């Protein structure tokens, strides 16, 4: 990052200190061991609200701090380091972005302040099949004179267990056939909405949500078929770049744990980092981390600056972050040897979380393909 502003430095230092002191990996372990249904501790969430992170990117008009994605990235990276479980990303980043990129002024006024103060958890309900594919949406929204009827099932909805509202992507049906994708705001307690928790390897709060002929007002439509696709893409760009920032943090912590082990663990009468094969492996991982960091920061900056090549940079960031986190989490286990295999040690958490994040919003192959398409080949 070119140079942090005074404000950015403060926020980064605060996040770093809080994560180190208040949210060690043992907090995540306790959450998992206690099998907390919503997938995070309410205390954690409360602390984030108090630090103002929930409104970080929400414009000041709507009760937020109106800071940029680069600043947000600083916080997410720190959270990623210690696998901090919270709905910050799902609601205060992705949910907020959905409202910021769509919705009427009334809708914004009604919801954004609630997202910013943590009172509502608004999350995107997008995925339907086992692999990320936003161009194939099967959920349907029928527009009638009196409103909208929503039907379909959404899977792997992040923080879907704790959410208060869903932003649902659905094919819009005018009666005269489907016309495109729209985004719809659905409160969790609307009749016809059912959800159940999905138990994933990273022990976070995913849910599967079914919409059974859910009747909504016309105002529930945040974006209609004319703008829906563009809005969804813009929201996904934000979501993807922000996720890459969290992944960078997770991988960086795994690197630090590994480097520390290389410097302290002795075998054959010397610290194992002195074995050239391991030293060079560490050098290679460090180099990849530096390259990944550049991509992540560039993607966040491009979003802040509304840069022309933002989509390319977002695809680049997610691809590089996925690849590096994949390799780094694998090497975390491999270099730690037997101890890395035990549940008592934290390495397994990083490995499991890594694969979930790699897969989310399109894996490395998905974004490599996207990058090639954007480059016209």
């Amino acid at each position, binding site marked *: 990052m070119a140079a942090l502003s005074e404000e950015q430095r403060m926020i980064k230092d605060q996040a770093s200190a809080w994560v180190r002191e208040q949210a060690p990996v043992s907090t995540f372990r306790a959450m998992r061991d206690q099998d907390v249904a919503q997938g995070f501790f309410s205390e954690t969430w409360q602390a984030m609200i108090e630090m103002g992170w929930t409104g970080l990117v929400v414009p000041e008009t709507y009760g937020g701090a109106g800071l940029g994605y680069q600043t947000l990235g600083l916080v997410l990276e720190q959270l990623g380091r210690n696998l901090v479980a919270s709905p910050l990303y799902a609601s205060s980043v992705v949910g907020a972005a959905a409202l910021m990129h769509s919705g009427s002024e009334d809708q914004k006024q009604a919801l954004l302040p609630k997202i910013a103060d943590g009172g509502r958890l608004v999350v995107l309900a997008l*995925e339907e*099949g*086992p*692999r*990320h594919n936003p161009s194939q949406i099967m959920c349907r929204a029928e527009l009638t004179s009196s409103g909208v009827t929503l039907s379909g099932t959404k*899977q*792997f909805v992040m923080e879907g267990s704790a959410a208060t509202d869903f932003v649902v992507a659905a094919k819009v049906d005018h009666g005269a056939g489907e016309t495109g994708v729209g985004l719809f705001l659905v409160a969790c307690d609307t009749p016809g909405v059912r959800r159940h*928790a*999905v*138990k*994933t*390897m*990273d*022990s976070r709060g995913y849910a*599967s949500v079914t919409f059974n002929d859910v009747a909504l007002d016309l105002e529930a439509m945040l974006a209609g078929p004319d703008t829906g696709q563009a809005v969804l893409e813009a929201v996904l760009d934000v979501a993807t770049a922000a996720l890459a920032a969290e992944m960078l943090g997770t991988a960086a912590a795994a690197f630090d744990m590994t480097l520390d082990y290389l410097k302290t*663990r002795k*075998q*054959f*009468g*010397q610290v194992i980092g002195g*074995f*050239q*094969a*391991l030293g060079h492996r560490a050098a290679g991982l460090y180099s990849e981390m530096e390259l990944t960091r550049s991509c992540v920061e560039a993607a966040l900056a491009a979003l802040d600056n509304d840069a022309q090549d933002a989509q390319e940079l977002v695809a680049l960031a997610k691809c590089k972050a996925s690849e590096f986190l994949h390799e780094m989490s*694998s090497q975390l*286990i*491999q270099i730690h*040897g*037997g101890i*890395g*295999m*035990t*549940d*008592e040690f934290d*390495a*397994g958490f990083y*490995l*499991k979380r890594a*694969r*979930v994040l790699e*897969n989310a919003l399109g*894996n490395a*192959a998905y974004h*490599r*393909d996207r990058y090639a398409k954007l480059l016209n080949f």
Partner: protein
Amino acid sequence: MTEQAINLDTFRAEVAGWLQENFPENLKGQGIAPFGGVEGDRVVEGDAALWRDRLASRGWGTPTWPADLGGGGLNHEEAKVLSEEMHHVGAINPIPLLAGMGVTMVGPTIMEYGTEDQKKRHIPGICSGKVRWCLGYSEPNAGSDLASLATKAEENGDHWLINGQKVWTSGADISQWCGALVRTDSGVKKRDGISFLMLKMDQPGVETRPIKLIAGASPFCETFFNDARAEKDDLLGALNDGWSVGKRLLQYERASQTGARPTSNKVSGSLQSLAKSYVGETATGELADADLRVRIADHLMHTRAHGLTIARITAEAKGNPEVSAAASILKNSATRVSQERAELTLEFMGHQGLGWEGDDFSEDEIEHVRGWLGGKAISIYGGSFEIQNNIIAKNILGLPETTQKG
């Protein structure tokens, strides 16, 4: 027809007849489950116990081992016939499983290094499938550097007293015997003061504690010796020569690990058809994800190359590929096959590959996740990936040693 062929045909008929009489019909196709599964956590009883004992009575659980020690006394061709006929009626040989490390590692090593008395006391138990063995090798601070182990054995009249801690002792909590590497002389270079002792697990001085792994419950234990006792005549090989004995045993282990086992045996069908079921295919029948297709093809080609290499080395060694110099190559290659397959499967399953429990995932999917996690150990245990590379560089290529400085 040669005389040998006639004999084999006669033997085949004999086996078929014996199986018809002795193999309990309702074990057919049941696999290892009635024998406690991989975890070995169930009591073997009823038909399963019957089959184990009948098989052992002919020595056919260890068909090529000497008949006077409880083995079958068969030659390799006969053993092959036996295996074929058992496969034919849907029978498995549970004894290698029931003996823990007994059949694959401890037995061969006892037969090579043991006294006549030791062979007579230990081999029949292994052949019976009733005595399970574990191995006390790794220690908390040794890892791949086995020679730096600290568990001590001291002479105490007619027996040894053992004190120390082992880790990664697979099946320690359900084994009757343990083969352990212990330090019997601290005054010499570290490899030179090690001995191989055999001791009973069911005694006051031995305590075991199962280890929970990243994939969940595991067969591994921490094992604590507090004045544990081993008989004087249960020293295998010469005093302070345990390093050679233990290394030889590991070669038997490596030989048994060169085949690329799927990290999960529940995911059925070919990898490519499974991938298609998650990812879909193009109009021309290609996997819809071209990037993934390349990597799956690469993986399947490596897998084929690995299989062909096992076949070639086996043929070159005239049917006895065990303990060959190529074992390290095959170990690393097998590891790559297994781990790569697991990662690719996880990838194409997408969200469905990320489950931990619950009805949102099929049994196969959950099983695969656990297998993928557990499989991360393949490149760590039994001589890590790095150790195998050291061995290849030094023993096969003749390059200078890089690990042992002291």
